[in-house]
């Protein structure tokens, strides 16, 4: 039995269902809307498990599910050494979002990361502490800034309403996922003129050790394991 994990609600669930339906596999929720059990039609030996998109990386890495749909951002942030445990099977073409670094729009002198590095240095000298970046993507942001040798900053944890932290003066900049940039603009933030820290989209992942067993199913989807 191959266990397929799919986000349990919202657009991500609907679009995942559509993606599989277009490839001849019908996924659905069994029973009421409150129940997180699923049905699979059009293929044998497959069970559907509905769970939070944020938990799918962990479940995949542990091998409790063999296949799973989640964002590349979550896999890379949550799984250290992700390639050792999971394999990227197919990008699914929805759920696009970029992880970006944004600063107050009123910082007219801040266009790119070099400006940001210089501002962070000044800020630390003036305020006596490191410039704060609010984010929930600690590992990705830290690795990216380390690769660019940006110093003089610190990360502060923000699990929600991250765009509001600058106005609330709990951070000077934010690193977050954005698709249209609307929330950023509404909060008077602008994105630095750099490639995103990560371009994320909904992706079908496999537990690495299950990849061989999933072969026939993936072939039916028109994919290669």
């Amino acid at each position, binding site marked *: 039995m191959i266990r397929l994990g799919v986000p349990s609600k919202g657009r991500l669930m609907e679009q995942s269902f559509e993606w599989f339906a277009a490839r001849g596999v019908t996924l659905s929720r069994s029973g009421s809307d409150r129940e997180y059990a699923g049905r699979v039609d059009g293929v044998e030996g497959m069970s559907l498990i509905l769970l939070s998109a944020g938990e799918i990386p962990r479940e995949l890495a542990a091998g409790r599910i063999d296949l799973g749909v989640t964002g590349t951002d979550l896999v890379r942030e949550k799984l250290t050494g992700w390639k050792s445990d999971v394999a990227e099977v197919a990008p699914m073409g929805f759920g696009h979002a970029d992880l970006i670094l944004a600063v*107050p729009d009123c910082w007219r*002198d801040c266009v790119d990361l070099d400006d940001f590095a210089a501002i962070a240095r000044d800020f630390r000298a003036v305020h006596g502490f490191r410039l704060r970046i609010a984010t929930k993507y600690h590992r990705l942001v830290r690795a990216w800034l380390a690769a*660019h*040798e940006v110093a*003089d900053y*610190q990360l502060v944890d923000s699990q929600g309403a991250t765009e509001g932290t600058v106005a609330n003066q709990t951070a000077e900049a934010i690193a977050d996922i954005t698709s249209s940039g609307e929330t950023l603009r509404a909060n008077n933030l602008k994105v630095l003129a750099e490639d995103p820290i990560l371009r994320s989209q909904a992706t079908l992942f496999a537990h690495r050790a299950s990849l061989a067993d999933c072969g026939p199913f993936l072939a039916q989807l028109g994919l290669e394991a």
Partner: protein
Amino acid sequence: MIPKRDKQAVGQRFLNAFREAGAVEVAPDILLPADTLLDLYGEDIRARAYTSSDPLRGEMMLRPDFTVPVVQMHMAGGAEPARYCYLGEVFRKQDPGDERPANPRDNEYLQAGFELFAHDPQADAEVFALFHRLLAPWGLRAVTGDMGLVMDAVRALPLSEARRDALLHHVWRPKRFGRLLARFSRPAARRNVAQSAAPWAGLRTRAEMERRMARLAADQDAAPLDPAWIARLDRLFAISAAMPKALGELTDLSREWPDLAPAIRRIDDRAGMLADLGVAPETVLFDASHGHRTMEYYDGFTFSFLADGRTGWPPIATGGRYDALTAVLGRGGRAIPAVGGIIRPGLVAELETA
């Protein structure tokens, strides 16, 4: 697999030797307040140190190194000159990136250390000669450097103060340093500041922005740095040879770069002191970019002892002068002259069983 007890025994030997060299043994806490370490090392330390939280004391870190607690202890009441030694575990985690390594590095290992709080150049030679003597049985490669030389070289570049300060600030970050240098070598591009109708937000003030914009405006008049200076810097960073030969190359370079002379004299004096202490300068390498690529805050003499042929091993011992760190820890008040180093007894134990 060497039992920890055996590594401990090797560490005790070094600790005894440090005591015989006049150091007082200290035993700093294992759980340290995270804020001081974060302020000093930034997010890099969060990627490397284990953090935990205490309901009363807030975020704590498992000791990632001994330097900070030893300096703090000395600042709280020691008089210079002072010599301290210690032996204990440090804890470092490793973020593997995309793939888990087949052989993860040790995340807990022993350090035996010696710290000397004194300003005279003799202190640098004393620490190095001590390490050199203790590590002599293993035929390690001794490499030294001098961040004071690098900083003097940067200060002597014909640049505006703002540009010089920026380079000095990033002297431990070769990539950012290189980017700045490349920018300073080009004719200053006209900077178009962004337009914004957004209301002011956040803790950074408008005055801070205006100060930076004024600095950028002034920078537009700056002449590009003559490529000859980049070539000289490249020549400087490429110097890596036995001390006497390296000193010869430095002296050659100083003919077109006279401001290097005082730093070269310091290195030459150090070579003399080392010879007096029984360390032949011909057996010690001098690598001008040694400290440039190692730990932040080393701002003078730096050294490493390496086991050649042990690929993937970190240095068996490292150390240097870190007055810049005590300046930050002292919050701009008292900067305490400090030089010291650590040996990894676990690695020495492995060399012994080989």
